[in-house]
């Protein structure tokens, strides 16, 4: 049976894993290669590395980090942050990533999705969407808006419509982050995740709001997510993917166990 994926997310700044609340008060949380290997060993089904401060000067540092992280990692490995062109993506793949996550660059130029996909396959292109419900819309969930710049600026299109376009243009997966839930540890936005998951045939990875095991159960059932991203709950040894998956299995969520 196809299982639900638990994806460990590492936020990286200048070659180090960092953890903060809403990207402020960053705390050093270790070496990305070491952390990725630890997450894989502890049962994560996939690793995402996000360069949260992606700068031009930092590209070589990032590529070096990707190279070191990929060396002994034998689960799918996705890299995001600052990928603006097919050439940027190619360098990240050559460094050892299996997938790239693109966000604002895809909104600015949607042909980037097919440009990367035509060389590396659709499965290698994850389109990340930062979303906020629109309280003024008749249906705040269906009307949820796409945001850029860390959730500060709306781009004037709905999440569901952009997800559909991304799929048509050859995206392999959607990484959906609810800016309303992100950092709250109060649960994923299951209604929004379900709306997007039902609108497309490609997998939807839910992100933002993970705090408890019950939140994951919720997003996999009510939210119809194919995978869920977890960052903060795994940091500093709070919990492991394995223990999370054992609890999910107990309530009937199909997961990869033993792992």
């Amino acid at each position: 049976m196809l299982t639900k994926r638990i994806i460990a997310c590492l936020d990286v700044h200048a070659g180090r894993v960092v953890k903060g609340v809403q990207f402020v008060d960053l705390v050093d949380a270790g070496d990305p290669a070491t952390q990725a290997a630890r997450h894989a060993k502890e049962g994560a089904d996939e690793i995402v590395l996000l360069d949260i401060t992606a700068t031009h000067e930092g590209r070589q540092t990032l590529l070096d980090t990707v190279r070191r992280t990929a060396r002994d990692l034998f689960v799918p490995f996705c890299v995001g942050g600052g990928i603006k062109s097919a050439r940027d993506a190619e360098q990240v793949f050559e460094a050892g990533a299996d997938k790239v996550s693109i966000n604002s660059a895809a909104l600015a130029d949607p042909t980037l999705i097919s440009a990367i996909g035509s060389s590396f396959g659709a499965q290698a292109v994850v389109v990340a969407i930062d979303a906020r419900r629109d309280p003024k819309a008749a249906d705040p969930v269906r009307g949820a808006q796409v945001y850029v710049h860390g959730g500060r600026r709306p781009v004037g299109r709905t999440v569901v419509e952009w997800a559909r376009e991304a799929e048509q243009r050859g995206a392999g997966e959607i990484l959906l982050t609810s800016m309303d839930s992100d950092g709250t540890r109060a649960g994923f936005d299951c209604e929004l995740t379900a709306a997007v998951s039902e609108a497309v045939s490609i997998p939807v990875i839910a992100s933002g709001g993970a705090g408890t095991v019950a939140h994951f159960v919720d997003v996999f059932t009510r939210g119809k997510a194919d995978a869920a991203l977890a960052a903060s709950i795994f940091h500093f040894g709070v919990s492991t993917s394995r223990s999370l998956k054992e609890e999910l299995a107990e309530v009937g969520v199909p997961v990869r166990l033993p792992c």
Partner: protein
Amino acid sequence: MRVTVIDYKAGNLTSVLKTLRHLGAETVVTDDDLTLVESAERIVLPGVGHFAATERLDATGLTGAIRSGVARGVPFLGICVGMQWLYAGSSEAPQQPGLGHFSESCTRFAESQEKVPHVGWNSLEVRPVNGIASRLLAGVEPGEFVYFTHSYKGPVTADTAAVTHYIEPFAAAVERGNVMGVQFHPEKSGETGLKILRNFLAWQAKGTVC
């Protein structure tokens, strides 16, 4: 141990190369240098992307070189589209023939409520191939998981070494003598994947896998 990895400009070779090297193999990559295929000790044909990309194998003469290698008994492993290429063809690119080592064709998953592509970790049901225990999948226990990402698949036949269920049962692995294929990505499948690649690297024409 030298492995010739075929580059036909379909996707990303880095993960496959990195994993083979991790397991102690020496890797050589070739696109149109047929001598590297003619002298190959082992051949891996990776592949993510579209079946139509295998046209390049014909255009460069690699198809013939691989066919000769396979006939000489060189162990061959096709991964994902590389496995699908072992069949007669795929409905993904009906005009493009495969190697035809297996006479059936690959087809898209049937329309259903489930999502296509099939992406993620799914389990293997290992089974004997033509009455013989699979050598590629030796040591893989019932229900071990591997990582898939694909929309097309091969049918379950006597050559099927492992079955996976998604929408319908399909061939997760195929094996006949020195010719092996996996629909999943062993290079991305954790310890189970490494075990399978070790089996491939240890494959000998006579005797058992060490």
